[in-house]
């Protein structure tokens, strides 16, 4: 069973391994580039984060972004090249009829096949996560002193969440391969589903821990409290009524005040409206990581159960 699965995926596994090795090489190269940029631009007393003021930093940032994107794609590739064909190709080639008429139940067959790919996925992604963590931390430190990894780009690739995300996409691909057939391509469906999961999680992730609310001065100046000095994750700015202030006039909704004041900050203030910025502080990094990973693992469990349910009822 294990041998069959390994033999089936040999080329894909080798290709994905080469991709991981290439990523590691690029991480090392960009790490050196950032160190050099920090040295050069630091000597010029210019903040490296502002790449437009320093060519070396701009180049390093550009390459760093490419590597970040390439790292973020790895779980999607695992889902697409290993997860989706896990059952889909068996059904397509009808080898499931051969496998399911042997002495092993469909449940055992599916779980064993899944484990054969899920275990190496978790092991490789865990080891890779350690390297990514080292890389991302050093890059962020090079960019901004005292910076954390709690930024959308770094949250996507660092920590424990990507490991669970790869496992989820592997299982989601398998589930789609198990259930989608005849009318839709499981591969096209997988791409849509993977991107949808990614989009939904980018929307959900900032809400997985309580946000810090910082009022903005009517003229747009935000004074960050001490807890947010270490490069927090800015989520968004919103209008809201100042808590505890009861506005006794007819403008009872934010929309009504905005319409009435027509962009006049003093008018907003007069009607008890303020702009607040929502942040996730750097201290929430691991809370968000573990909660995100928890959601992925729970979803993996659900999808695995649904796949088993589906395969047990499958009929030619």
């Amino acid at each position, binding site marked *: 069973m294990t*041998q069959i699965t390994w*033999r089936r995926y040999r080329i894909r596994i080798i290709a994905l391994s080469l991709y991981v090795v290439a990523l590691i090489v690029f991480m090392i190269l960009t790490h050196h580039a950032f160190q050099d940029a920090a040295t050069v631009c630091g000597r010029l007393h210019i903040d490296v984060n502002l790449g437009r003021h320093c060519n070396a930093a701009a180049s390093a940032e550009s390459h760093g972004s490419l590597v970040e994107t390439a790292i973020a794609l790895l779980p999607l590739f695992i889902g697409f090249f290993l997860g989706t064909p896990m059952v889909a190709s068996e059904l397509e080639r*009808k080898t499931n*009829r*051969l496998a399911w*008429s*042997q*002495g092993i139940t469909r449940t055992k067959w599916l779980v064993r096949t899944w484990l054969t790919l899920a275990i190496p996925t978790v092991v490789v992604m865990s080891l890779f996560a350690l390297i990514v963590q080292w890389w991302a931390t050093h890059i962020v430190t090079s960019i901004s002193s005292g910076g954390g990894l709690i930024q959308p780009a770094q949250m996507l690739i660092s920590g424990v969440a990507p490991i669970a995300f790869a496992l989820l996409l592997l299982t989601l691909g398998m589930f789609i391969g198990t259930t989608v057939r005849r009318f839709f391509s499981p591969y096209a469906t997988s791409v849509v589903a993977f991107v949808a999961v990614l989009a939904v999680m980018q929307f959900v992730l900032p809400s997985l821990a309580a946000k810090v609310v910082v009022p903005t001065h009517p003229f747009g100046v935000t004074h960050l409290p001490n807890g947010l000095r270490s490069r927090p994750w800015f989520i968004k700015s919103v209008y809201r009524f100042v808590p505890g202030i009861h506005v006794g006039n007819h403008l009872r909704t934010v929309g009504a005040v905005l319409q009435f004041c027509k962009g006049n900050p003093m008018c907003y203030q007069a009607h008890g409206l303020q702009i607040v910025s929502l942040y996730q502080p750097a201290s929430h990094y691991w809370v968000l990581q573990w909660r995100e990973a928890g959601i992925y693992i729970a979803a993996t469990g659900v999808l695995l159960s649904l796949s088993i349910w589906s395969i047990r009822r499958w009929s*030619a």
Partner: protein
Amino acid sequence: MAVALETDGLGRRYLTNWGLRNCSLQVPEGSIAGLVGPNGAGKSTLIRMAAGISTPSEGTVSVFGERVDPNSATFLARVGYLDQLRPFYKHLSVEETLEWGARLNTSWDKASATKWLVDLEIPLDWKISLLSIGQQAQVALAVCMGKSSDLLLLDEPMASLDPLARQGVIQMLLDSVAEKGTTVLLSSHIVSELEPICDYMIILSKSRVQVSAPTDYLLANHHLLVGPHESHTFDSVNVISSKIAGRQATLLVQGDPGGLGPEWQVISPDLQDIVLAYLAKPNAEPFVPSSETSELNEGELS
């Protein structure tokens, strides 16, 4: 009579069309049952449902008295299935395929499976994809036989095989039945190959059962009548088919032709005559005697 395979009102619908409908039959334990019918008659559908690969849309199918459950290890251990399409993991070698079979089955007769292929001079270290279609068919049979099942469901096992290889397969099936008491249900288009080995016959046509009876009983209850074609109205027999050549009519009838006049010559048909007659008349009255009736009559015959 112990029953290895039993169906009751079995049917399978594909979207709006029925692949098989109202199929009720019994295959006795230890028999070799032949399943014949034109393309699209429902042979593969019936075999797939018996193997648990397809789920019935209506009715039931049981194996050794238990409802078919593809998620039961006990059921899977007792049933061997050869798919018509011969699906394989073609990147594996023949030997690896046999090892794979050994790992997935508790009772695996590797020695027999290997010997069968070695005798046929099929290179065990070759990848399946490099073998000829006929050799692949032999490997598929070896995997199916290696499982040492109590019931073998073989969908066109002779297809793609040369005449010599067919004889070998027939002998292998006969040996398996004699040594292990295996029950075999095999489908084929070639009736002449089934006649010497099948002690039970099932004829499907237009997605329904036309005949399901022991071969001897089937032969004993059908007759060829040769006589004048002018008028032939019979009360005692059921005319299945008739051919007219000049003034002479040849009828295949079911029933006792004892009371017919001297102008009629009664000849024993062979299995092919009966099968072809039923296939040509898909609306003929089904010949599905109860197991008690056929056993009783077989006793009388002997």
